[in-house]
């Protein structure tokens, strides 16, 4: 069985929300990258430090209850709200703040934005 570690993810320049502590588990092992161009470096870093499994959401789909954290490159309207609405911890690599029709679901304890690789640190 893999042994999982925790990371703390803080907002980056111009970002909003967080910090979030992410600890994958056997039930929720996936670091779910819903980004263009494959697994985003931020998702790869989270997976590397935690022992979670990096997963490309544009290649195949995963059940929400398997996701430890979703990494998105959302410009502020859709993906920023969907994953928080589904109670999935959400990391946006772009510096967005709550907006869009789903803004009410975007809270500091479930969402952090403007995140770069250096904003992911071992806890």
């Amino acid at each position: 069985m893999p042994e999982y570690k925790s990371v703390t993810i803080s907002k980056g320049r111009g970002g909003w929300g967080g910090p979030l502590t992410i600890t994958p588990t056997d039930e929720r092992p996936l670091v779910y990258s819903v980004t263009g161009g494959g697994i985003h470096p931020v998702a790869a870093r989270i997976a590397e430090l935690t022992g979670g499994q990096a997963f490309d959401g544009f290649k195949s789909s995963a059940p929400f209850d398997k996701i430890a954290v979703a990494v998105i490159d959302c410009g502020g309207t859709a993906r920023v709200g969907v994953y928080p609405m589904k109670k999935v911890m959400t990391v946006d690599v772009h510096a967005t703040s709550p907006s869009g029709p789903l803004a009410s679901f975007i809270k500091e304890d479930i969402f952090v934005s403007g995140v770069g690789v250096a904003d992911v640190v071992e806890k």
Partner: protein
Amino acid sequence: MTAPEVTVEEEVLYSSTVTAVGEQVGMFVGDHGILVLFGADSPAELHEFSAIHEATVASAGPRPGDVVELGSTRIPVLAVGSVVEANLVNLGHIDFKANGSTEADMPGDCNLPVGSLVLPQPGDTFRILRPAGPVATPEDPS
């Protein structure tokens, strides 16, 4: 029938066909003036509030002054955020906001005039067109 005397040539930057329209799309367009599109490869959880489409041309994103064509409706582009082109070309994703603003608040915003959005239907074309101006100068350094 006579053909129009002047045909303005337009460059087709993006050309696609809408294949499905999520059940929340009408609410997004009607209540918020927002239309979200994603390519058919996108995760299923995004389909509920998105118009899904399959592109045949994906060479570039819009810039202000371009035209968004949804079905038979043509809409001028007012402002474009910094990540719009990457999202559109890579993911088939774009967020249209009919807010009338010439400044993009969020990096993914593509702003259109207030009230200009229409609810797309499966089978509609979705294109981005760049008008060829009378003094078009592609090498213009600006």
